[in-house]
């Protein structure tokens, strides 16, 4: 490091302090507390607790509803990640080809990202409300009985749709930027090399998008695991019958509704490990298929 930087040893820390403070208070501290709490059993009023070793973990892992939530999470996350990425890619490819009014399309397609998860949830809730919803009414006219308050599969489909709608914009921005950075001359060379539009996309454009796609896969998995809480809470509150209870929602339910802090903390720790493992797996195996 050069001399002027040596003299300012403290300045960088001061500049980073607000961000570091936020991370420490809102991430590391609660995370450490959760790890600690996972090894204690607490009474319902939080007045006393005693060390319990792995009892909380054993209880969680022998609870069938935990496995149900894990299964729901798997379906939910896969559907959200695949859905949000493929729809975003399709929209980005189409927006990339538009010349007239391109900015308008792009701006409109980015808007959903600015909507808060809970608000997005309420929006979809209104559209699909079994008695006064616009879309549920249309579905009723077509002979499809829509009641996500009773039908678990429909409830899951609804939160998946709402979550995809919200995440799509984020993916769209990245895919569009990646598409625009594919050199035009490559596609021209491919056109001269007798590749039709479809083949050009899959053999040239798509491989060049793969770093972006990989990044989005990681981001979307994390999104589906954690950030969809608001949407699920407003739309279905995990119901009916736990059909839309994902792992993160169950952490909230057991801890803050059921007041079983130990079980909730143990689930948090397991969830942290799970997402950590998933991200490691993605970097270890999926990244190898990425063309940088």
């Amino acid at each position: 490091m050069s001399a002027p930087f040596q003299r300012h040893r403290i300045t960088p820390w001061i500049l980073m302090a607000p961000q570091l403070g936020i991370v420490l208070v809102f991430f590391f501290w609660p995370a450490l507390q959760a790890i600690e709490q996972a090894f204690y059993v607490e009474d319902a009023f939080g007045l006393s607790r005693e060390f319990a070793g792995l009892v909380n973990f054993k209880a969680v892992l022998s609870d069938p509803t935990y496995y149900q939530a894990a299964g729901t999470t798997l379906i939910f996350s896969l559907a959200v990640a695949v859905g949000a990425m493929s729809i975003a890619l399709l929209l980005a490819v189409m927006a990339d080809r538009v010349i007239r009014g391109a900015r308008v399309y792009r701006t409109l397609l980015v808007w959903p990202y600015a909507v808060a998860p809970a608000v997005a949830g309420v929006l979809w809730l209104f559209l699909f409300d079994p008695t006064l919803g616009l879309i549920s009414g249309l579905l009723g006219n077509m002979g499809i009985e829509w009641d996500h308050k009773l039908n678990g599969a429909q409830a899951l489909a609804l939160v998946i749709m709402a979550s995809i709608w919200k995440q799509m914009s984020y993916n769209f921005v990245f895919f569009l930027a990646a598409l625009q950075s594919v050199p035009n001359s490559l596609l021209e060379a491919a056109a001269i090399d007798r590749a039709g539009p479809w083949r050009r996309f899959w053999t040239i454009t798509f491989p060049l998008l793969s770093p972006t796609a990989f990044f989005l896969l990681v981001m979307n998995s994390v999104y589906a695991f954690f950030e969809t809480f608001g949407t699920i809470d407003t739309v279905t509150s995990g119901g009916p019958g736990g059909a839309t209870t994902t792992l993160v929602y169950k952490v909230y339910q057991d801890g803050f509704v059921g007041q079983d802090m130990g079980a909730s903390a143990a689930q948090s720790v397991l969830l942290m490990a799970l997402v950590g493992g998933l991200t490691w797996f993605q970097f270890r195996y999926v990244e190898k298929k990425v063309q940088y």
Partner: protein
Amino acid sequence: MATLRLNGIRKCYPNGITALHGIDLDVGDGELMVVVGPSGCGKSTLLRTLAGLESITEGELTINDQRVNALEPAARDIAMVFQNYALYPHMSVFDNMSYALKNRGTPKDEIRRRVTETAQLLDLAELLDRRPRQLSGGQRQRVAMGRAIVREPQVFLFDEPLSNLDAKLRVQMRLEIRRLQKRLGVTSVYVTHDQVEAMTLADRLVVMNGGHVEQCGTPMALYERPATRFVASFLGSPAMNFLPVTAHRGGVVLPNGNPVALPVAIPEGRAATLGVRPEHLIEATSVADATEVLEVTVEMLEPLGADTLAYTRLPGLEEWLVVRLDGAHAAREGQRLSLAFSMAHCHVFDSQDARVPLADTEAQACQ
């Protein structure tokens, strides 16, 4: 093998800009036609319309007498080498070269045979497994050539393929391209802004300016008989000297009153431009046919080794007069030189910048 014919090709963009104003051109079978011009002259647009990457607004383009205006690039059976090479970064050299063959559905073992052959021709055999990113500039350039050659197309199109290489490699690849093109005998159109490249590569040369063809012919014909002042100034390095003159008594007069006895047919008193290349200004003592002697002052010298360029000024004239002297010449700055025009190599351009034929010398040259 193929012939390429352009008949009144016009290209207008939707925003109203016309890039090509009716280009007529015939490229013979196996000929290497070089299109040269300054940036923005429409030469790249011309190449892209040939490739089918740009549509043709008006006119007719035929390959082997078959109209191809409406054909997709894929259907024209042409190969193009791009300025930035446009190699597919995620494919190995082998895959880059075989991409077009695969798209055509060529059998696997034939692809392998053809790619291997081409790789040997271009000295790429060791590099087939590498990615473009792992190659040097020159190697990438050869892969781009290989990708075009392996297809055995009707026509090669080159879009400034050497402009991203360093000077030494450029000279080397220039020779290589010339050798390969002659050996394969494929009709080629080569676009460049480098006049040295253009002169050395071309069977025939097209000089373009502002979307028009200024002149077309063999490099030496264009060099010796430039049809316009633009062609005269564009070909040759250092550029031709231009002096404003006035027609007077069957010859011309320099602004300082110095007469030059050139037999030109320009009405008395009309303004014109006299052009003479630096190598055609000769020290008066050494030339017999030096009729008019000019006294100039050397203001600057550029020694190039074999030659020395002297930047001189004629008294009373704004324009530099660049003279090519022998490298061993003992000229010093501030020195006076006696120069003579080599009359046979002087050019006169009228007020529209078109060449005015010289009565005597032109007649001699035609014999």
